[in-house]
């Protein structure tokens, strides 16, 4: 039954607001009832008790109803509010026994045992409003069913011994009436003892929440004892202490009974029993501004009514919980824990007062929210790291591109540009020797040689920038050429199918092979190498292995680092395996989709 409390999350919050008009209506009706009851009772001159005593049930009832409505409004899902209100109505009902109208009197007497039964229920269900355990349930059920039955039977058998309610008497025998009353008292006493037996262990557990309820339990036990005793004693015709009238004793008893709703009310008002809608309010607030997980857990605990709730973290290596400071946490008596998972693994727990919050379901909700908050934190951290890495990679690529441009400009400036300027000068000098055919022929020859050299330079530069073979025949042909041109034997391993990859992917692949082979030739001191080029599953797979000295490092030498950036920019991956003494393997995978 408790499961429905928090599953209907949204309805709850709305409910606590919708409940107010209902509560107001109940308050008004109760007030009306009390007025009616009072007027009926006070109008009866034959009641046999003073007006004050006769009015007490109504007063007690109103106090109960007042406290009950307040509790109900603050915590709609907690039954304590409803129970208090019901008790109050029962008290008002019971007060009718002093009325002059037989029907009302009978009604009043029948209401008699109800306050007792409801009070027992309240005490056992405090502070969460729910009964745990079959013992509690049996006692409360007995209270609701058996006691009224016993009392009603006893009344029918003349237990009250009132002349004005003889209407209920079936058997007119004083002995039976005595026995009936004795049964009434015994039944009440049994119920009381059973309740006390169930309450005493709770008093013992030194929990903050439990301690809050301790005065309640004490007050309840005392009140019940006094009331039942007085009732029994007055029924037996005895006075307790010499000279005190029975009426006064009754009044004192009732006064003690008044302690109960006030004790309940004090417990509620003192805090901890926060508004039920706060949990949903918390969820809504989280949508705007996420809380860090530990503050979320504490706020959730607050919303549930347990300010001692906190988040502890699970250390899988050491298999125990620690708090935020790293100190180990043990679950004390009365403490319960709900697991918090993030990414499918146990990462912590919400530790809370198990006595105060008997229903684990709302705590589970808080645990789930904490898990989500932890997920959020982790993913945010991962995203930030990834974004930083991406930014760094882009910066490196931009810088590499800039460096490349400058290199080309410098090479052109130092090479072809220089030569052409010189050739221009030579051609001018040649023009001046126009009359000497031999000089002209020689000069022209020199110009030609110079231009040839400039053209050779440009050809080499173009080959270094974008090899024409790559553009004309694609990666496979260009890679084969690289392998063939190397000064050491390089085997080329590939299959025959046409490569289906976009030009920039083929280009990146070419530069991987080129850079890797350059490293092999410059650093590896290898005797042979292999270039492997295949395409399958929508990706280009390139491998360059050599049998050299190994020990290549991505960090040392910007060639491999720049290559990694380029490969990443193309959406691929680059791996480097290089054990010193065992050769090197450069592996790249580029998507072709």
């Amino acid at each position, binding site marked *: 039954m408790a499961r429905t409390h928090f599953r209907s999350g949204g309805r709850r919050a709305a409910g606590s607001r919708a409940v107010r008009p209902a509560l107001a209506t109940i308050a008004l009706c109760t007030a009306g009832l009390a007025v009616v009851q009072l007027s009926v009772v006070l109008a009866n001159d034959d009641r046999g008790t003073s007006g004050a005593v006769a009015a007490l049930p109504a007063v007690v009832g109103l106090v109960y109803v007042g406290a009950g409505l307040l509790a109900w409004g603050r915590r709609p899902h907690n039954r304590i509010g409803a129970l208090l209100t019901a008790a109050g109505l029962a008290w008002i009902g019971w007060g009718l026994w002093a009325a002059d109208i037989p029907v009302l009197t009978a009604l009043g007497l029948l209401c008699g045992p109800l306050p007792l039964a409801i009070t027992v229920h309240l005490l056992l269900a405090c502070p969460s409003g729910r009964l745990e355990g079959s013992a509690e349930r049996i006692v409360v059920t007995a209270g609701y069913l058996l006691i009224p039955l016993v009392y009603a039977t006893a009344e029918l058998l003349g237990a009250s011994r009132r002349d004005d309610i003889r209407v209920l008497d079936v058997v007119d025998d004083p002995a039976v009436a005595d026995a009936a009353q004795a049964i009434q008292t015994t039944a009440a006493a049994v119920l009381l003892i059973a309740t006390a037996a169930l309450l005493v262990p709770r008093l013992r557990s030194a929990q903050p929440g439990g301690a809050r309820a301790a005065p309640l339990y004490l007050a309840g036990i005392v009140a019940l004892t006094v009331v039942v005793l007085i009732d029994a004693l007055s029924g037996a015709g005895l006075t307790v202490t010499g000279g005190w009238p029975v009426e006064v004793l009754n009044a004192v008893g009732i006064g003690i009974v008044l302690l109960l709703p006030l004790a309940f009310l004090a417990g509620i008002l003192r805090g901890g029993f926060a508004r039920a809608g706060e949990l949903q309010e918390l969820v809504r607030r989280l949508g705007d501004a996420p809380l860090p997980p530990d503050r979320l857990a504490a706020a959730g605990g607050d919303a549930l009514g347990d300010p001692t709730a906190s988040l502890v973290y699970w250390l899988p290596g050491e298999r125990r919980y620690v708090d935020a400071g790293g100190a180990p946490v043990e679950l004390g008596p009365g403490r319960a824990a709900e697991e918090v998972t993030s990414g499918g693994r146990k990462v912590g727990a919400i530790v809370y007062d198990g006595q105060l919050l008997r229903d684990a379901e709302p705590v589970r909700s808080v645990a789930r929210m904490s898990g989500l908050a932890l997920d959020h934190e982790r993913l945010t951290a991962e995203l930030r790291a990834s974004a930083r890495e991406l930014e760094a990679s882009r910066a490196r690529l931009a810088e590499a591109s800039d460096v490349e441009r400058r290199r080309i400009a410098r090479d052109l400036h130092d090479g072809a540009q220089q030569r052409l300027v010189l050739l221009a000068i030579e051609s001018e000098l040649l023009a001046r020797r126009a009359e000497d055919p031999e000089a002209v022929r020689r000069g022209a020859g020199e110009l*030609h040689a110079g231009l040839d050299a400039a053209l050779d330079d440009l*050809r080499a530069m*173009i080959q270094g920038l974008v090899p*024409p073979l790559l553009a*004309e025949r694609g990666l496979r042909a260009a890679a084969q050429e690289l392998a063939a041109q190397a000064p050491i034997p390089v085997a080329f391993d590939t299959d025959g199918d046409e490569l289906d990859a976009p030009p920039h992917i083929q280009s990146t692949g070419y530069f991987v092979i080129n850079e890797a082979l350059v490293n092999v030739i410059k650093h590896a001191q290898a005797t042979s190498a292999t270039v492997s080029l295949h395409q399958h599953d929508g990706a280009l797979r390139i491998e360059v292995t050599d049998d050299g000295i190994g020990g290549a490092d991505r960090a040392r030498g910007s060639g491999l680092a720049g290559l990694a950036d380029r490969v990443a920019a193309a959406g691929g991956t680059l791996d480097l395996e290089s054990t010193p003494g065992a050769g090197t393997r450069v592996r790249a995978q580029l998507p072709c989709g």
Partner: protein
Amino acid sequence: MRIVIGEDQLLLREGLVRLLEEEGHEVVGSAGDGPDLVRKAKAHRPELVIADVRMPPSQTDEGLRAALEIRAAEPAIGILVLSHHVEVRYAVELLSGDASGVGYLLKQRVADLDRFFAALERIRAGGSVIDPEVVSALLGRARGDPLAALTPRQREVLALMAEGRTNAGIAEELVITEKAVAKHVAGIFEALGLPPSAEGHRRVLAVIRYLDR
């Protein structure tokens, strides 16, 4: 001779035409892309087709493929393939099959007029012409004992042979007698395990095939 040109770069095309016509050749057709070249060659049936490797529409190796297509259709037509850069594999492709009347040169060699016109004549006569750049690339990459067994002089002769020179041409280049050249050539063929052959294009083919393995 009657020549058809395939070259999409306008200035170069005009320059070539002028050059050829000054030497007395007749440029009967000029094309700006691969398919057009094939059409014009088939239509005019020249003695020689000069084609740039890189031409529209794909700007990859259109001209080369057009030349090979013309070759297959009209084996009598000589082809000279020009490029700003030369690749060993293109040379091998051009020479596979019947290597007579095939040439492959860097564009800048055109400026060396004597050699250029001599090359045209050689091609028309059924010989082969391969740019020295291709040969040096081949020699640079070839590894293994047989080449190591050659004397430096034999290597020089080998290089010129791979370019497509006749023994006379080699003798002139190296300033030695033709008889000495013939002796060197025989030695080379023996060292490389190649069958001796008198025909120019077969020698080129054999050498290039051997060096490219």
